């Protein structure tokens, strides 16, 4: 018995020392990652090793004085959200410091953060195309050459790269996935299919998952595959009457069917399905989870815009005879924009802004412009601007061969072209967060993995 006292006392002392050491260990910032903007302009998620004191984090957080912001969350996970109504015009320097709930101080760190997404676009170059990125500071930058023509370009929702459908022959399309570094250089480019396909439709979500709907020449129906952000493929037993769209928050997909649209869970979530009957298409998602804008097609060829909210019947916001080209949504459907085209001989392109009650807030004619067929409108909350692909018409009625990207600032109504012809374009969420040490930037976009 006596001999047991010594090891027992030693073990007890070791446990006490370890406990005291762990209690006094300072908290660490484990990860700093871009997050969905929500109702703000942009956001980053901060993950700490210990539950942090919110008041202390808030008090010690340093951003440019004119940049309103909010700190949201609790415990180990916090979200820094840029707020206000002034578009972000330059990268921000951010200092994070504070204490955890035990009063232990976090080592202060300083970061340079570019919250604005980059524009990713394809540009025809002879018989082939180029993939380009654009930011205010750099202008257009070539990322890579693509053989054949680009039929579809989709920047991935987590900003890690893009998916493309390219073709050298109309019946031989190839689905490719490109990985880009946070500072927008090409890491790799590889086809997702060995054999060419005749049809492919792409969709992504905020996590960077990629849904590919594709069919080969000998197939009578499209196969659906989900590639997760880590590149793991899973076949989904789905049939659809049109392009399937992944819900931005993940876990769900909107599946068009013959007589309506279905909302389905994706594996590994338990199977659930909600069906909305009627001749409806999904037009755009709102940043608030669970809200989306639908287009309803009426038998008399009118079209209406509806707001879909969780568990409620869709609410009609607008109805008209104009062709409804695309829509975009901000916040909790606080502002909805729709792009309309009317008239045959002298087509008129209009941008209409609605609120969530369907009131028309602004109606603006985009005279002298025509839309690029099939292109979508994308809202960037950080610039408070809509991305539109438009062709300029001359006084004689001739229009440009290729469209240009245009930014429509939603608060001022200014439409500004980004010079240079392009084929397809979309926003690539920014992952440009660099830690600053001793005055020099150090590539540490994430203390975990981004």
């Amino acid at each position, binding site marked *: 018995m006596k001999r047991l006292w010594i090891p027992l006392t030693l073990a007890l002392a070791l446990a006490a020392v370890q406990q005291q050491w762990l209690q006094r260990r300072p908290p660490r910032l484990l990860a700093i990652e871009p997050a*969905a903007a*929500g*109702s*703000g302009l942009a*956001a980053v998620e901060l993950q700490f090793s210990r*539950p942090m004191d*919110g*008041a202390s*984090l*808030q*008090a010690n957080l340093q951003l440019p004085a004119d940049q309103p912001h*909010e*700190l*949201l*969350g*609790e*415990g180990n*996970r916090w*979200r820094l*959200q840029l707020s206000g109504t002034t578009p972000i015009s330059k990268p921000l320097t951010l200092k994070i410091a504070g204490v955890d709930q035990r009063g232990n101080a976090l080592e202060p760190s300083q970061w340079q953060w570019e919250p604005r997404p980059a524009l990713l676009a394809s540009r025809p170059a002879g018989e082939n195309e180029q993939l380009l990125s654009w930011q205010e500071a750099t202008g257009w930058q070539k990322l890579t050459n693509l053989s054949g023509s680009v039929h579809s370009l989709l920047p991935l929702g987590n900003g890690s790269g893009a998916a493309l459908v390219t073709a050298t022959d109309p019946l031989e399309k190839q689905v490719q996935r490109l990985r880009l570094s946070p500072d927008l250089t090409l890491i790799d480019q590889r086809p997702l299919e060995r054999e060419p396909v005749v049809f492919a439709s792409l969709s992504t979500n905020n996590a960077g998952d990629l849904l590919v709907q594709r069919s080969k020449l000998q197939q009578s129906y499209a196969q659906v595959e989900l590639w997760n952000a880590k590149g793991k493929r899973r076949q989904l037993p789905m049939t659809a009457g049109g392009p399937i769209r992944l*819900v931005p*928050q*993940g*876990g*769900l997909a909107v599946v068009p069917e013959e007589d309506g649209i279905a*909302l389905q*869970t994706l594996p590994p*979530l338990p199977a*659930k399905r*909600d069906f909305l009957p009627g001749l409806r298409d999904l037009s755009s998602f709102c*940043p*608030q*989870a*669970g809200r*989306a804008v639908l287009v309803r097609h009426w038998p008399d060829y009118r079209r209406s815009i509806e707001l*879909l*909210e*969780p*568990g*409620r019947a869709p609410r009609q916001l607008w109805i008209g005879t104009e062709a409804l080209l695309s829509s975009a949504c901000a*916040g*909790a459907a606080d502002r909805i924009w729709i792009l309309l085209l009317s008239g045959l001989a002298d087509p008129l392109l209009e941008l209409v802004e609605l609120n969530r009650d369907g009131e028309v807030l602004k109606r603006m004619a985009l005279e002298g412009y025509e839309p690029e067929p099939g292109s979508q409108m994308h809202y960037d909350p950080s610039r408070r601007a809509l991305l539109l692909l438009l062709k300029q018409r001359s006084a004689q009625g001739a229009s440009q061969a290729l469209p240009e990207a245009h930014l429509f600032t939603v608060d001022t109504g200014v439409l500004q072209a980004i010079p240079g012809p392009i084929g397809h374009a979309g926003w690539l969420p920014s992952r440009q967060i660099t830690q600053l040490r001793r005055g020099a930037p150090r590539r540490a976009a994430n203390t975990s993995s981004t």
Partner: protein
Amino acid sequence: MNWLPPFVLGLWGAVLLQAWGSGRLNLLLQADFHWLVLVSGLLLLALAGLAARFAPKRRSGRTPALVMLLAAPLVLLIPPRPSFSTLAANRSSGALEGESETLTFLSPPEQRSLTDWVRLLRSQPDPELYRGDPVRISGFVMPTPQAAPVLARLTVRCCLADATPVGIPVIWPEGESLKADEWLAVSGEMGVERVGGVLRSVVIANTVQPIPKPKRPFEP
């Protein structure tokens, strides 16, 4: 014949079956694991039968059997009345497992449980997105230091040992008297408040109704 071992085994088998049948297990274990208690009770009864029919050659100590014999009636007679708020106050609010994705489109705000709301607010903690959403939740009153009591639930993966509290701040109607552990149904709307410089979602309660403790008080 030594009657004590088969009697004690049978008594404990009966205790487990009583706990399974009376709903007492709901306070201790997730429903997914209740069958294990039923099987154990039946096994103990079977062992009691075997021990009565075939007396073991080796005599076991009488003291443990006597302790078990005395403990069994106590377990049967004393009903469990755990204080959830005391338990919650001594547990850290850890990570909340489970999907928040399907809550977005598939469940309207007024059908979300307290745990659903906490999951959603942790995955997307932007209070402005939920301002004005109708809320109908139930839970027990959990006092918090230097602040108004919150409405809370305990989430359990397996059993009471891993219970994790999840709570949501509430702006209670003026003059509302609240008792710790009291179960309440609260309806109102989601609002926004600033605490210590941090913006957060808060339930603005319009009506508060005392309700009996649910038969299954834990949430998965």
